[in-house]
């Protein structure tokens, strides 16, 4: 009964809507997080660039409040989702996303990408990355700590702000970073950090602004954060501290939904996203590193940013099996 009502409504809606789309231009519907689709984000540039080469298609961004929100939405919608692609999942939730079985293989050759680690993922295509890092201001912090242990050894009034791993991607990133660097010693590191943690915020934006307002000496952010201040504000006092333990990278990825009936167009889009033209849009709109070598096409502010000597790697399986325990340990240690 309900189904037939819905069918009737759909037919009615179709009758009304049909004349407008008489030309039958394929519409690629892409779920993403709102910062990506924002007018200052990469969304508009990527849309224009792809529409120019796809031979008559329209890209439609459908933004949720966060990248995990986009995944939850397709999980709720299942087979009936209207999304063809999700753009903006990151490596910490890629394993969980893959396990839903909703994503198709991309079938692209990604061997030419330049990432901290070679890319072998069959479902997800990377489009930008940065390392999690603590940022500091050279005006107030002359010699930043060079490791978690150095940070712990500083006086207690040296304050950092971090994010809740249950609500913010970098917060989860820090939990994984410390677990990746210290393994079973992670709770000990967290306990050592506790006196330095001014507060644990819900979102990245809150901690970052606490740092900018001078309430804390360092904030957990990204190795690329200084690029924003250099390029947009001409301010080169914000730096990312490089830690000897190595850093964990956050790689943002895109994937095609199996349920999409535009598989070919979707593949074409992912190929564009990882191409020179697509990648040129990313750095100064999403403030992340591109996944290919852009040569002279990247703003020099990015080229000169320090890169960590070592990138820590955690597999999907390790993350899926342990992240809840690691989060619990972190919460218990900083309680």
């Amino acid at each position, binding site marked *: 009964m309900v189904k037939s*009502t*819905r069918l009737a*409504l*759909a037919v009615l809606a179709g009758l009304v809507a049909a004349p407008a789309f008489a030309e039958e231009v394929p519409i690629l519907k892409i*779920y993403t997080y*709102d*910062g990506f*689709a*924002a*007018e*200052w984000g990469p*969304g508009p540039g990527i849309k224009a660039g792809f529409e120019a080469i796809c031979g008559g298609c329209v890209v439609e*961004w*459908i*933004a*949720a*409040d*966060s990248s*995990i*929100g986009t995944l*939850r*939405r397709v*999980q*709720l*919608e*299942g087979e009936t989702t209207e999304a063809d692609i999700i753009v903006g999942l990151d490596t910490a939730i890629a394993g969980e996303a893959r396990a839903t079985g909703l994503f198709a293989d991309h079938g692209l050759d990604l061997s030419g990408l330049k990432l901290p680690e070679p890319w072998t993922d069959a479902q997800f295509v990377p489009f930008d990355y940065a390392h999690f890092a603590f940022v500091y201001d050279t005006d107030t912090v002359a010699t930043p700590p060079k490791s978690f242990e150095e940070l712990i050894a500083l006086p207690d009034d040296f*304050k950092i702000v971090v994010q*809740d*791993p*249950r*609500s913010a991607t970098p917060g*989860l990133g820090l939990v994984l970073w410390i677990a990746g660097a210290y393994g079973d010693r992670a709770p000990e590191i967290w306990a050592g950090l*506790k006196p330095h*943690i*001014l*507060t*644990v*915020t*819900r*979102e*990245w*934006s*809150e901690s*970052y*602004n*606490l740092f*900018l*307002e*001078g*309430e*804390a000496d360092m904030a957990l952010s990204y190795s690329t*954060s200084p690029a924003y*201040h250099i390029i*947009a504000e001409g301010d080169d006092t914000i730096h990312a501290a490089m830690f000897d333990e190595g850093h964990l990278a956050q790689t943002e990825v895109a994937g095609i939904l199996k349920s999409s009936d535009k598989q070919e167009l979707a593949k074409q889009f992912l190929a564009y996203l990882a191409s020179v033209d697509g990648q040129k849009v990313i750095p100064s709109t999403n*403030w992340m590193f591109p996944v290919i070598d852009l040569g002279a096409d990247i703003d020099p502010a990015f080229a000169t940013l320090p890169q960590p000597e070592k990138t820590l790697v955690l597999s999907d399986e390790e993350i899926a099996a342990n992240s*809840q325990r690691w989060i*619990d340990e972190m*919460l218990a240690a*900083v*309680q």
Partner: protein
Amino acid sequence: MLTLPHRPLRIAAAIALAAGIAILIVLVLWAILAAATGSEGSASRIDIPHLLRMTSIQAGLTTVLSIAVGMALAWALNRLRFPGRDLVVGLFASAIVTPGMVVAFGLLSIWGRNGWINQASEALFGFSIGNPAFGLSGILFAHVVLDGAFAARIMLARLDAIPTPRLKTGQSLGLTPWQRFAIIDWPSLRGTVPGLAAIIFLLAFTSFPIVLMLGGGPANQTLEVAIYAAVRQDFDLAGAVRLAATQIAVCSLVILAASALAPIPTSFGASTAPRWRDRGLARLLQMLVLMLCTIGFVLPLLSVLIDGLGAGIGRVVAQPAFWWATTSSLVIGTASALLTLLLALALALGRGATGNGLLRTLLGMPAFAYLAVPAVVLSLGFFLLVRQLGFAPATAAPFVVILANSLLALPFAMATLGPPLEAIARSRGKLIRSLGLSGWRQFTLVEYPLLGRDIGVMLALAFCFSLGDLGVIALFGTQDFQTLPLMMFRALGSYRGNDAAAIAAILLVGTIVAFVGLPRLFERIADAAR
């Protein structure tokens, strides 16, 4: 009770509305449970009793402090006259509708490590006062700024409405300031306390970003954080519904206590009495209260204005997106405010028309219970419901926002309009019956003219509340649908702190204008009707 006019239609409308809200809450939870059967979530690992205990302590302290501070401030503001008083009253009132994050950052720029007070103290005396703005004290401070100022605004309206003859009698009897408070003020304030206390408790109980940011870590957390994690990170939908039901149940005890209290007559209308100042110590105390509250409450908001109205504002105002967001905010705010007014009148008139305690309680509860439903649960539930009904989420989004905003503002509206409406029904009931007025004429001839100013306060509240919290459509896929608060949060989330500061300041100016202007406007309109 015999003096209440017979108004079956009013009671029926209120019953229908209360039942509708209750059904909506049940549907939201049911939709999530139905979706949960497909997904297996991880077992919940949350120490619920601990969270409940922590949250109740925090919310209880917030409530007691806010009511006490609010009452002291209302008392001081009612007695004192000074240039810019209206502006100060407007500033106090606007705290509660300003996004919590803005107020929190305002507080920090005064009290934080790098705030005005520390800077001044270091420059003058060479030492820092440290950082008092974090931890439980920080949470309480921020909450009292938000909620205490709101309580003060509502209570001030009642004090300002104390009838002239009562004041004149008091003055001629030579009441001391304390006697004056106990005999004249307290009876008019009493009626507002249960509703205000319930609202403040619920707000503090469900507060999320402030608690997390100023709390200093997971030790000071609310159930709301755990529910957010269950929905978003763990995707444990059944667990989320369980936690949400727990939260609603606990909050319902408070709501039950507040709604079950017998109605207390209060004052209504505007007072026209000539000023009657307190003298001596009382006056000094009033000045002290006002000064402390100004430092505590007004300075943080002032710092928001100063930060925002600087250089960055030109760039923000030059963006077409800013004007679209402003238009959306105004349309959503106006529509929500009008809907809130209708809903609040229906409920409050219905409650005022019955003398049956049980019915009054049942009529009041659903509106308040809606405040106890976690925001992340609402956004998920509404998304699922809209899909179930077969609507495209993006199309339904504006209507969902307006409805959700109105329901959120409803308890505030009832706290504003309820007490004076009750008082009118009881004090003018005999007159209305003897004149044989119909329900409609009772409203247009008696209630509306006496309520003008309160309707203005209520509309300002609902309007500012609804300028654009879009949390409820977080999943709807509406990136083109942008309001000013959303634009501010997006700017904050993409390094554009200056833009965010400018938008925050513009929002604050808008709410102050609404709070100063709307009550006056409606008082004038209602006067014209009289």
